């Protein structure tokens, strides 16, 4: 067998096997998520959340919100955090060396003064300049930490060091939380008496075009812009199908950095967020799980399928590209750091299913797809393509993608039904048909660039400018 024959066969059958495997996995995920969603919806009818809000025995939370150059919205965002529906909590805003007047604004509005502080520095961080608390007892739950710039992970680590409660909730300061978000996020920690719940995460939804009043979503609208609408569908698919299935398998590797709660003790034991990676949210969850597996401690990472947190999605290709580039680099870094788990039965489902899935179908998929596309172009130029077969396959894959998205829409309508208007459902369906043609290729390209940037050892987050909810409201 010549080298070229081998290469040709490898290409032909390797990609065929890979494609069949990925399609099978998608089908499995879609079907497997149904049971979990059904079960959750039933279970949630028995949950008396107000009980937790009013109980003096409810656990205390430390809400950590890092802020970097957020002066435009910081005051409103902090107000929104202070108004959440929960009793025992403190809000720790970590000003990560902002160059704007975020701190001054906070000091003026919340009447802050520097206070003596103690931080054991279990996790090494950049120095803290000062800790502020309000003179006004109304804001007694607010703590503002001013520190030297060190990135999001470093800021969160400062918050974890300073936090005084058993559970830390890490959120993006510009996110909008549902009123009962903390109750729902906390419940899993109390529910499981047999396993230690080390982290919980909820669904993040796209808030573009939603009506916001006093830091709350008052009306949910489907984004009118092309990119946010595409991402809406993408998030529905990821959160309602993907994570639901992984949660059922107990193989969840990712809790969104935008909103997640963690057992502080375990976070400290594993050394907090790793500031060397841009995918710190995923890396922390993987490290915590690794630790529990190695210690042979029974544990659980819980997932709440209710929409708990709303965030603004990038509306331009430039910003979206940066975001996806960063996500790709974060995935590669995390997989690289924890490569010992790859098909390692010692890590059970984590090593045998979750890690390989992320390796083959999250990390490799864009590369395989891109290579396939380049190969296709070459073969097309050389006249080696069977066009009949090409169009048949193209139609098949396109129909499969549309079916998967349609199923996600169906699940959304049958469960949380956030988009009430008929035209919004039509629009979502249209999105499902358009997405594989326009949005998906761009995401693949951004991931390929992420791989290139990873090889070039690029470690930057990339500027993520946002319009801000307050600004939009003012303009409206």
């Amino acid at each position, binding site marked *: 067998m010549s080298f070229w024959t081998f290469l040709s066969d490898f*290409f032909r059958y390797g990609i065929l096997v890979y494609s069949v495997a990925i399609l099978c996995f998608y089908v499995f995920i879609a079907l497997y998520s149904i049971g979990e969603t059904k079960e959750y919806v039933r279970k949630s009818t028995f949950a008396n959340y107000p*009980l937790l809000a009013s109980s003096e025995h409810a656990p205390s939370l430390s809400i950590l919100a890092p802020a970097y150059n957020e002066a435009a919205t910081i005051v409103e965002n902090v107000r929104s955090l202070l108004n959440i529906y929960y009793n025992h909590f403190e809000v720790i805003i970590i000003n990560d060396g902002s160059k704007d007047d975020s701190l001054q604004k906070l000091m003026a509005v919340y009447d802050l003064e520097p206070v003596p502080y103690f931080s054991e520095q279990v996790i090494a961080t950049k120095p803290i300049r000062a800790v502020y608390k309000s003179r006004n007892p109304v804001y007694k739950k607010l703590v503002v930490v001013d520190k030297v710039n060190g990135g999001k992970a470093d800021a969160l680590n400062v918050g974890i060091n300073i936090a005084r409660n058993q559970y830390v909730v890490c959120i993006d300061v510009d996110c909008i939380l549902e009123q009962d978000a903390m109750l729902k996020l906390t419940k899993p920690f109390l529910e499981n008496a047999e396993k230690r719940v080390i982290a919980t995460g909820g669904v993040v939804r796209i808030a573009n075009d939603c009506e916001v009043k006093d830091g709350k979503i008052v009306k949910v609208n489907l984004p009118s812009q092309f990119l946010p609408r595409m991402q809406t569908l993408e998030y529905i698919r990821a959160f309602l199908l993907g994570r639901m299935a992984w949660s059922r398998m107990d193989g969840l590797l990712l809790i969104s950095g935008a909103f997640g709660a963690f057992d502080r003790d375990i976070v400290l034991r594993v050394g907090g967020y790793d500031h060397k990676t841009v995918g710190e949210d995923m890396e922390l969850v993987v490290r915590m799980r690794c630790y529990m597996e190695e210690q042979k401690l029974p544990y659980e990472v819980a997932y709440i399928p209710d929409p708990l947190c709303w965030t603004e999605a990038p509306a331009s290709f430039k910003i979206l590209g940066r975001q996806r580039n960063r996500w790709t680099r974060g995935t590669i870094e995390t997989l690289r750091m924890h490569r010992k788990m790859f098909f390692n039965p010692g890590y059970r489902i984590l090593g045998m299913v979750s890690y390989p899935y992320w390796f083959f179908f999250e990390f490799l998929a864009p590369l395989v797809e891109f290579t396939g596309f380049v190969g296709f172009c070459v073969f097309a130029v050389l006249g080696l393509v069977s066009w009949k077969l090409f169009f048949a396959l193209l139609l098949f*894959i396109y129909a499969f993608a549309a*079916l998967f998205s349609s199923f996600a*829409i169906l699940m959304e309508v049958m469960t949380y039904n956030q988009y009430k208007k008929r035209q919004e459902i039509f629009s979502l369906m249209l999105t499902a048909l358009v997405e594989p043609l326009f949005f998906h290729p761009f995401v693949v390209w951004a991931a390929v660039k992420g791989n290139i940037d990873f090889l070039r050892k690029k470690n930057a987050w990339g500027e993520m400018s946002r319009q801000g909810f307050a600004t939009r409201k003012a303009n409206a």
Partner: protein
Amino acid sequence: MTAFVLLKITVGADTLFLNAAAVLAAAVAGMLSFVFLFRKQRYLRQQKKGAVLHLFSNLVAETAICESLQEVQATLQAFAAANGKLLQKPFARQVLIKALVKTKDEISGSAAGNLQHLFEQLQLHKDCYQRFLSKQWHVKAKAIQQLAEMQQSQYLVKIYRETNHTNKYIRTEAQLAVVKLTGFKGLRFLNIVSHPVSQWQQLSLLSQLKDGLAEEDNIRRWLSSSNSTVVEFALRLTEAFKCYQLHTEVVACLQHTSAVVRRQALHALREIACEDTTSVLMHYFSTAGKEEQLVVLDLLGEIGTGEKELFFLDTLLSTNDKGIRYSASRAVQQITSNIPIKTEAVTVTSSPLLSLLTKKAV
């Protein structure tokens, strides 16, 4: 997707994929149609339910404000005369049960009694009992919840049997139901429960026991249960009902194998502290893990009153562990009171207690 198309595979594959694509396209069309069908059906169901609920809301409201059971009877008769057939329909009866349960949960006193009377008069408990017999866990658990909310004590024995059910939701609803129906006595399921009682369930049970009287003999028994979650709950009861008589048993829990129990015991000691408590805590400190040591120091700060605590804390002010040193100095500050603590206090290594006391004296 483009990866597939690189080379010629087998003859006839194109037809196969075209057929498969056609099937998938039909499935997409079917699914999208189903989305609209489902929405339409849900809308109609909600309309129907809304109309029925509107009728029943008036009945529930009128019943709640009745001043006697005879008046309730008269209200019901008047309603039945106009809507007799509706009351026979299972769907409508379910809507009424839900409306009654929801309203009863929000009110108390004679109004709640009226609703209970209405529930019994319409024999709605039989509907609930039928659902109680269901094999589906969520149907059964909901029925238990409804029977308990409507104070249907005649089903107590049947519900009690489910308090150790293998299904977590049936079990927890049954446990809550017996406590709702009989108060503190309902907790006797703790004698037999072999499954863990989650912290969530413990909070739910405590919220039902707000007004009751504690039975210390039972709590004492549960404090030595082999089920560590029962011990944990017993400690919460000790804390909530301030059972000073159980001090010895609570102290014994500090030696429990479960860290959660030990921590809960420390919390309970805060509420039932007596003269000996600080001595016990200081003795316990040397054997405890760091997390518990920090809790002990907090406790000493809160309940410590005398020199012995201060001298014990003094020995800790020069340890290498910054966390312990800080907590110890904070405890000293609390005991001596009104001495403002500063960051520097943590780094002071020579005679810190003396330094603090001197500051106070000044």
